[in-house]
């Protein structure tokens, strides 16, 4: 059930780009992305609600490939403030028509000057 994120960790210099992937063994109809800075709570970045959708948040964008059951987060021209752990979350439907979010293990991103 848990989505798989890759890579586990990334180290960047300021200004470099990175891609974080999230894949699921089950069909996806939405993907959530969150960022958690050290010692803080996760903060919402974006939700992709349908296949092929792409969204952006500052210089962070994401794509969602429904057929491949995966989403990718693109960090362009990284800034020091991008450092943190990035989690993807995928909804899991259960009885009663309810949904819950299952988070991946996270990708640690460190941006250095």
């Amino acid at each position, binding site marked *: 059930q*848990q989505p798989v994120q890759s890579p586990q960790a990334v180290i960047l210099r300021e200004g470099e780009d990175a891609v974080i992937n999230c894949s699921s063994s089950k069909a996806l*109809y*939405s993907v*959530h992305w*969150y960022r958690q800075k050290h010692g*803080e*709570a*996760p*903060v*919402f970045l974006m*939700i992709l*609600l349908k296949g092929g959708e792409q969204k952006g948040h500052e210089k962070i964008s994401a794509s969602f490939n429904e057929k491949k059951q995966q989403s990718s987060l693109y960090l362009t021209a990284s800034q020091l403030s991008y450092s943190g752990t990035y*989690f993807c979350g995928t*909804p899991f*439907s*259960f009885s*009663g028509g*309810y*949904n*819950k*979010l*299952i*988070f*991946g*293990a*996270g990708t640690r991103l460190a941006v250095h000057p």
Partner: protein
Amino acid sequence: EAGVAQSPRYKIIEKRQSVAFWCNPISGHATLYWYQQILGQGPKLLIQFQNNGVVDDSQLPKDRFSAERLKGVDSTLKIQPAKLEDSAVYLCASSLDPARHEQFFGPGTRLTVL
């Protein structure tokens, strides 16, 4: 708009003691979640409320953990008795709808069990 409030922020107890955490979600959010986050891992859902009813508690160790959400607003999570492996950050979050809307997280309670 006020965010999700949690207390206490830190708690240190000895094993076999009991502890309780409190959460006040964002006004109007029907869905409330309690997550356990162990260092280096993603948040793990313990229990999910829809208003004051439990819709999922499949990952809650019910022999020691309990939670309630009276009147569909505030919630408390209790551990009794605590074990060493319960050391983690306990996050409360709320949202309008789990699948289509973002979750707002509180600052968390860092629990250390000695």
